[in-house]
């Protein structure tokens, strides 16, 4: 009897080990979309034929995400879609990518663990997509000089193996402002609302609001943008409440810089219009209200950076792409609700941004307090120093 128990327990342990091994396997399989990685050279002949790029078999690239890639919408998904686009464009094999998702960026232990696992898996290039990974990534970059680290949205870098990347989303916000302004002009309204995650101390959010307002004012000079701050990047019920308050205060177009589409759903319910963010927020529920959304095409950067690493031409230069590079774009215009000739107006402004004749934060901007900025804002100012609203923008 005793012997039998021993054999049984041994069997159980063996089964458990097998199960764990199976888990580990499926883990890496699950995180990649097999359709995009399966022999992409045949699915994308045009893209590959122009490239003489040959991905070495021992090349490995990893990406670190704050939330789960299974959710298929929002911030992480936008990054992961870009990553998968790079994988299929360059013909990187499934066995050559390492995806770590659902790693909270405020948890240093978990961040370290994930990065260590990626380094131990022999990654040559690691992307980290959330702001608070920054310091941990820097530590790793110093410790592993042979691995290239690229961090999104932060400001740290070194001149060897660690850079940061972000984009001129304000350009797209300006263009979306034109769409909002034309809609307001068409219906004789003056007020737009903006649900902001952070207050004016956050340059990214504040610059985005200013750019949106400038876009509106380019077609409707005396328009106002009212801002409500939720104080959190992700707070669905707060974002809804803020949007409702803006609608109650007479806002005719609701724009947003926060994670959920709740402001857009509120706009739809309140029979006003909306400008989303991150992904195309024109859905079945918002098809009668959502006009256009500024979006990110991260694939542009991931493809360029990975290609450079494979070719050995990668340099530690901070990347700040925009409309020109295709990193920043707009979701398709919802022509069912947009004002007449919106697309023409957006295309015209976009052409001017591309040829350099339109600079969003050009000299002569008037701040809300009446003072005038005597120079065009530099990239450094745009990414870190905008802490004021411009004329026509105010907290509600």
């Amino acid at each position, binding site marked *: 009897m005793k012997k039998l128990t021993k054999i049984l327990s041994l069997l159980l342990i063996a089964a458990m080990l097998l199960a764990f091994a199976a888990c580990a396997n499926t883990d890496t399989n699950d995180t990649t979309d097999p359709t995009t990685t399966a022999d992409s050279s045949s699915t994308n002949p045009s893209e590959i034929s122009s490239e003489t790029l040959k991905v070495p078999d021992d090349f490995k690239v990893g990406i670190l995400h704050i939330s789960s890639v299974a959710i298929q919408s929002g911030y992480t998904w936008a990054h992961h879609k870009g990553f998968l686009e790079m994988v299929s464009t360059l013909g990187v094999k499934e066995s050559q990518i390492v995806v770590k998702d659902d790693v909270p960026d405020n948890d240093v232990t978990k961040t370290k663990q994930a990065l260590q696992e990626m380094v131990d898996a022999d990654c040559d290039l690691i992307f980290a997509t959330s702001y608070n990974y920054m310091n941990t990534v820097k530590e790793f970059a110093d410790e592993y000089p042979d691995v290239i680290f690229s961090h999104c949205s932060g400001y740290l870098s070194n001149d060897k193996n660690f850079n940061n990347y972000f984009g001129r989303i304000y350009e797209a916000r300006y263009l979306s402002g034109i769409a909002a302004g034309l809609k307001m002009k068409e219906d004789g309204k003056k007020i737009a609302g903006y649900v902001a995650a952070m207050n004016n101390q956050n340059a990214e959010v504040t610059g985005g609001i200013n750019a949106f307002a400038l876009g509106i004012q380019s077609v409707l000079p005396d328009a106002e943008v009212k801002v409500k701050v939720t104080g959190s990047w992700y707070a669905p*019920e707060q974002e809804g409440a803020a949007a409702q308050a803006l609608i109650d205060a007479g806002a005719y177009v609701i724009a947003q810089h926060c994670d959920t589409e709740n402001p857009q759903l509120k706009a739809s319910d309140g029979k006003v219009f909306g400008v989303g963010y991150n992904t195309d927020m024109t859905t079945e529920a918002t098809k009668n209200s959502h006009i256009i959304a500024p979006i990110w095409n991260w694939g542009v950067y991931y493809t360029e950076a990975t290609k450079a690493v494979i070719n050995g031409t990668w340099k530690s230069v901070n990347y700040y792409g925009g409309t020109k590079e295709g990193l920043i774009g707009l979701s398709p215009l919802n022509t069912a609700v947009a004002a007449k000739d919106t697309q023409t107006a957006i295309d015209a402004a976009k052409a001017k941004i591309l040829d350099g004749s339109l600079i969003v934060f050009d000299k002569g901007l008037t701040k809300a307090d009446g003072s005038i900025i005597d120079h065009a804002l530099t990239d450094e100012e745009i990414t870190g120093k905008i802490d004021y609203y411009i004329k026509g923008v105010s907290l509600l």
Partner: protein
Amino acid sequence: MDNAINFINAALFAGTPLLFGTLGELISEKAGCLNLGVEGMMWVGAFAGFFAALQTGSAMLSLLAAFGAAALCAAVYAFLTVTLRANQNVTGLTLTTFGVGLSLVLGSAMCQANGGAPNLPGSFRDKIAAFKIPIPGSGDDVVKLAVYPLTIFAIVLCISAAVFYKKTRHGLSVRASGENPAAADAAGVNVSAMKYASIILGGGICGIGGAFMSLVTANGAWMPAGIVNGFGWIAVALVIFVRWKPMLAILGAFVFGAFQSMRYYIPDSVISIPNAFYQMLPFVLTLIVLIVTSMRKSVHAGEPAAIGVNYYREER
């Protein structure tokens, strides 16, 4: 005037899930069971209600699913604390962790199966939409009082609970089980049955509160990283704030709802206070109520005497 009505609407809107959560927890605590799993049960209810709504399109089935799923979680809590006499605080906290995790895992699986976060069809949302009551004398004909059917349901539940505890024999038995289970036991009350019934019913009601958040607060869109986000904890604080009185819960929930939305309705030009201050207000208020009532040492403070204490018949 218009602004005031808009503010009342916002307070009712934010207060409704709190009212369900508060009443659910209150019912559990009346029988002496401090269930700190409100947050978890609300998350479970939010997922179950949403999933049932997506699959069946029926508002009734959706609410039943939310009630059932959360009641099931509460039943596990009841088995652990009443039958096995596990520590109530620890079990409740575990239930919260479990419920939040379960809801996120299942929600993520649902998103994956659906190819993105799903939305409920407009036809479903119309079934639970607010009645718009025009306010005579308001400046603009757009401004109406918006009352959700579920808000009315929650208020009716509170009134029924108040009547039940005050006027019925069973209500007395439940209260006795929460105040002095030994005495209730001696008087022939089935203490365990009272506790089981209270915990399960209370849990189910918390679940409906969660469903309100995923169906109404989130405008019928699944929020992949969760929608309840702390409302369950506010409900636990609210039970103390309303001194375990179901009728007061109605007022308390809407006052807390008003706190939740106040910062969006006080113009920045009038007074500019950091957001965090507004978010803190409900809890400061709860603290003050706690201090005041403990200073008065009133026997009518309302807290069930045997709350949080498991009942061992053998130790009588």
